[in-house]
């Protein structure tokens, strides 16, 4: 079961790698006083960050609007934040979503567009396949709405700010804690 801690920075923040290192130290309980070498960050081929010296530490990052968020857990985790802003929602849905998601959104008036997007992106971040690895090949929505789990992974929407949608994905989520970054 994944206990997930999400740290946020915004609107002013250090660069993404500094945010990652600070949050990893806060989550893992380590110190940065000695240079924080154990929190050295690398990225997989599709951009997912990882800590080569701490293989049990999993993380996922997202940024949207004024905020940067990092999710940390001892299990693989994916996170996505989306600010709600005008866009070609119908065109994006047709172009990048699974036909089942597109059908649901068209029927529902695209009200859940950002929930679908955040859910899908959190899934591909959790698996590490990235957004180009088959974003349209799976559906997070059925005829009646967004599914609670997909491909054996649980989806959990987390309240954040009024005009943002935040979704967390892991195999099984036991808790989600949201904290300001240090």
């Amino acid at each position, binding site marked *: 079961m994944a206990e997930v801690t999400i740290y946020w920075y915004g609107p002013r923040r250090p660069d993404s790698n500094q945010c990652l290192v600070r949050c990893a130290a806060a989550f893992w309980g380590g110190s940065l006083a000695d240079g924080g070498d154990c929190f050295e960050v690398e990225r997989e081929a599709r951009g997912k960050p990882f800590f080569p010296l701490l293989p049990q530490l999993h993380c996922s990052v997202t940024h949207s609007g004024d905020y940067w968020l990092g999710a940390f857990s001892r299990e693989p985790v994916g996170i996505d934040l989306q600010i709600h802003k005008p866009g*070609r929602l119908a065109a994006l849905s047709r*172009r990048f979503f699974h036909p089942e998601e597109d059908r649901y959104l068209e029927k529902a008036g695209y009200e859940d567009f950002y929930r679908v997007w955040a859910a899908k*992106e959190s899934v591909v971040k959790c698996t590490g396949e*990235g*957004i*180009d690895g088959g974003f349209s090949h799976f559906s997070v929505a059925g005829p009646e709405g967004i599914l609670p789990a997909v491909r054996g992974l649980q989806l959990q929407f987390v309240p954040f700010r009024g005009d943002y949608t935040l979704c967390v994905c892991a195999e099984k989520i036991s808790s989600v804690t949201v904290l300001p970054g240090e």
Partner: protein
Amino acid sequence: MLETIRKIIFEVTGKTEVTFDTDFVRDLELNSFDVMNIVCAFEEYFDTTIPTRDVWQLHQVRDVIEYARQRGIEG
């Protein structure tokens, strides 16, 4: 082509600092949604389709210009 790309990026994101060397993620801090939104706008403007697998190879404005040039898309 640079001017057309500037217009599309401004229309979608409100960002104005766009040169040949601009990196969409590093310099403009765009996320996946922003990039996909720009792709849709680009496809509408030029009445073309960019395969999704190609989208993530286009990191900088100069990559888009070169990509368009190779496919005979003129802005």
